[in-house]
């Protein structure tokens, strides 16, 4: 066990060059707690909005900081930052690490409702714990907490336990670091347009909003924000690609073999009998600018896409689209959805992210219908499905898609 730090205490990092900051809390039931990091210059402000690392932006511009929102499920590790200190750009003086309770004031909760919040500093070279900070959350009214900071001091990196925060949540926290944040709540309907000069373009802001579809059948409908349409809709599936080793031999026999999970979708366009599938199997990659206006990102690792697998949907062509059923299929190996711990995120420009967690896994079934995306009279409707099936055919039947299925194999 590493050095136990009290709030305010600091330690030098010595030779450690790749560190993890593991964040955990208890009890488990209190959900929707999010870590974030602010990469600040000497003035204590973020270098740019892109230097605010959180669930919608899990990677720093220099690639040195990676946020893992699904790092674990124990009270000592739920979310983690991995920091390669040798790659942090020179202008970054401090990485301030925070924890916030989403929408806390509306829900009437604060950090005092938690029993424990623990921050651990790990040396990723050997997995050892350098320091541990039990955040004194008892009686805290804050809903956003600065947990700790990694900072440069006389050419060395140090780590400080902080444990101070803001009652008002993520917005005052972000403002403190100079991040421009969008309002968390949707804006009221705009008054009837007047023939006055067009308003100046809004300053780009970081979108803190997030919508989680928690229950099967729960849905959200989004209005388009511009005349053109919804822009590019990204459907991302992220999962735990390296499940816990199950024994000492796991490292020798298949321990490095991850879960092979394929993302795909069934699609149906307006006007009848125009249906199909987009998936890696059979190399049915789809097309973005032509029907079906859906494309599998495949092995396109441009860095522009988030981790995991991605499907791009041309939201400007929504009028041609009737419905899309996004699914994940465990191609090989035992279909262990619990170990995969998948989370799907629908990202739309200028809209809150929509999150669908696969949190009711059914072991033994290889197919999971994750979410249904529908054109609901011009609105984009996303519904959580999370229904498990034996395979493509059974799912197709359940949703009355009407495709003919033959066995295939992936190259």
């Amino acid at each position, binding site marked *: 066990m590493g050095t136990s730090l009290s709030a305010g205490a600091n330690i030098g990092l010595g030779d450690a060059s790749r560190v993890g900051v593991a964040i955990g809390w208890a009890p488990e039931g209190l959900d929707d707690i999010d870590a974030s990091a602010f990469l600040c210059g000497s003035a204590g402000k973020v270098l740019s909005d892109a230097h605010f690392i959180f669930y919608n932006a899990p990677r720093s511009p220099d690639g040195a900081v990676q946020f893992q929102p699904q790092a674990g499920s124990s009270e000592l590790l739920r979310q983690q930052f991995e920091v390669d200190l040798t790659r942090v750009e020179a202008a970054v003086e401090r990485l301030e690490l925070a924890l916030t309770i989403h929408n806390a004031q509306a829900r009437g909760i604060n950090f005092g409702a938690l029993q424990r919040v623990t921050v651990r500093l790990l040396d990723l070279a050997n997995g050892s714990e350098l320091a541990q900070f039990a955040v004194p959350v008892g009686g805290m009214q804050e809903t956003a907490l600065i947990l700790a900071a990694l900072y440069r*001091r006389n050419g060395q990196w140090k780590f400080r336990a902080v444990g*101070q*925060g803001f009652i008002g949540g993520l917005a005052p926290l972000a403002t403190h670091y100079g991040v421009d944040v969008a309002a968390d709540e949707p804006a009221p309907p705009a008054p009837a347009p007047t023939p006055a000069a067009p308003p100046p373009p809004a300053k780009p802001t970081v979108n803190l909003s997030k919508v989680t579809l928690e229950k099967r059948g729960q849905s959200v409908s989004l209005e388009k924000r511009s005349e053109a349409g919804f822009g590019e809709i990204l459907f991302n599936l992220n999962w735990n690609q390296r499940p816990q080793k199950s024994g000492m031999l796991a490292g020798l026999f298949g321990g490095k073999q991850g879960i092979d999970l394929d993302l795909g979708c069934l699609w149906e366009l307006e006007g009848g009998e125009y249906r199909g599938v987009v998936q890696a199997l059979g190399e049915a990659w789809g097309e973005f600018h032509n029907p079906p206006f859906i494309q599998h990102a495949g092995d396109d690792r441009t860095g522009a896409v988030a981790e995991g697998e991605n499907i791009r949907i041309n939201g400007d062509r929504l009028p041609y689209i009737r419905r899309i059923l996004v699914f994940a299929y465990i191609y090989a190996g035992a279909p262990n959805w619990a170990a995969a711990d998948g989370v799907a995120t629908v990202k739309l420009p200028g809209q809150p992210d929509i999150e669908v967690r696969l949190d009711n896994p059914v072991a033994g079934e290889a197919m999971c219908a994750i979410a249904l995306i529908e054109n609901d009279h011009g609105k984009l409707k996303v519904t959580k499905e999370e229904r498990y099936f034996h395979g493509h055919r059974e799912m197709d039947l359940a949703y009355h898609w009407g495709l003919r299925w033959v066995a295939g194999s992936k190259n």
Partner: protein
Amino acid sequence: MAVSLSKGGNVSLSKEAPGLTAIDVGLGWDARVTDGAAFDLDASAFLLNEGGKVRSDADFIFYNNKTSADGSVVHQGDNLSGAGEGDDEVVAIALDQVPADVQKVAFTVTIHEAESRGQNFGQVSNAYIRVVNKADGKEIARYDLSEDYSTETAMIFGELYRHNSEWKFKAIGQGFAGGLGPLARNYGVNIG
């Protein structure tokens, strides 16, 4: 060049600034931006005799007793939050006016109500205490409290003392449990 001292530093600085006639002891920190009780740091000075004790309670110079009886040591005011630029509190000493039976002057920094507010120096941003030669404005010695004294709530910064015909400054940098009251008692002040 200023000498930056780390914890346990104990350095005689007569060579850094020979012939000192007047100094300022400056204490600075950043106002709290997070929610919660303000950080209120206090600089104090004790005029001490040969035995290391105050001659009377009036030799304890702090926020409620800002000027020594002879006028040689002046506390320039209590900053309650750290708001503002530069040094937030300054204790000025005219060395040539210090009475002959004062052998040394000790300087301390404490956090007001540290215990009830659950605070220490490490929770305060950019807290430091320094001594500046008034003749040229140069910093002679400095401790960064937020870094090197992060888990302390009270600290003896240093001592100014007579050596032959001149004054020297000795950095001490020793944490002290309990805050200003026990510190003052330690120097022989009768605390009510």
